[in-house]
């Protein structure tokens, strides 16, 4: 099936769950990611059960901190490590999103 991930259309096996997708996309820190499926943010507990379907649009939205170093509580700052998309994929996404 074809699904759109961060604006890029990709071929994925049928029956894939959101959790499977996080793994197949090699998201290194899934705890730092919100997943939006067809414009609706999912709860984390839904990742394992929610099966993806042909034409679904998935956005991985990363928590990002990074401003003044210690303005309030000091939890450290935000980092979302992940596999970076290839350049070509990003440019394809540009075309898809505008």
């Amino acid at each position, binding site marked *: 099936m074809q699904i759109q991930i961060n604006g890029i259309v990709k071929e994925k096996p049928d029956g894939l769950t959101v959790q499977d997708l996080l793994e197949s996309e090699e998201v290194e820190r899934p*705890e730092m990611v919100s997943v939006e499926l067809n414009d609706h943010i999912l709860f984390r507990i839904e990742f394992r059960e929610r099966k993806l379907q042909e034409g679904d649009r998935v956005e991985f939205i990363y928590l990002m*901190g990074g401003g003044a*170093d210690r*303005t309030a509580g000091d939890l*450290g*700052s935000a980092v979302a490590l992940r596999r970076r998309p290839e350049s070509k994929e990003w440019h394809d996404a540009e075309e898809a999103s505008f």
Partner: protein
Amino acid sequence: MTAPLVLSNEMIERYSRQILLPGIGGAGQKKLLRSRVLVVGVGGLGAPAALYLAAAGVGTLGLMDADEVDLSNLQRQVLHFTPDVGRPKVESAAEKLRELNPDVQVVTYPDRLRPDNAAGILEGYDFVLDGTDSFASKFLIADACHFGGKPYCHAGILRFEGQALTVFPGETACYRCVFHEPPPVGAVPTCSEAGVLGAVAGLLGVIQAAEALKALIGAGDLLTNRLLVCDVLRMGFRTVRVRRNPRCPLCGPEPTITHLDTAEAGRPNGAACAVGAAKRDVHGLA
């Protein structure tokens, strides 16, 4: 300071290039001069944002930061210069901004935003810029702005990437609609491990300033209900549609966060910034 009702000749000259703009004009400039913006965090995001807000003639700029200038800040925090190392950031920033534009009243808060001081400080402002680094601060700003009914612009930066979202509480998707609660503390490495390009901080800070100016004037389309994401390494920009989340713990119809938890204010890291989120794992995000 009372904003002037009549623009002086000097003001007309100073702001001429933006007074010329459709949607601003003399009336828009007067609005800016009467406006009050709070910049929380005068670092990579807040410094460039404050520069543009001051230059544009925002009447009152609140600067909040408890830190002192560190040599490692200078790569991106453009309001602070080499001789400022060791000075309080709000002092260093206020000095530059007053020199840049004496029309602007700069108010400094050499303090951290906490659940017990947030409401009182936010109350005097029309718009809030989140220029903070930690998630505790970002969630606290989102919560405090929600309860205070203050519009704000969130931004985050990391390495070569950034994101921004403007929120009108109760009207548009909020920070917690997208990110329900902070990640577990142990899951968050420090900024020094990850790094960020100074120009990315500047880019996002200036986007926040532009959002604040537009919101104050009432011009154009804001970054509401859409999250701007950009990758400067590839120089690509996208906006991701985000909706108000019916299950949002803060602004949804059945919120689990009902007020700022001032009882938690004494905690050293203020991690539990609002009641509910830290205590009930109803969102499955623990």
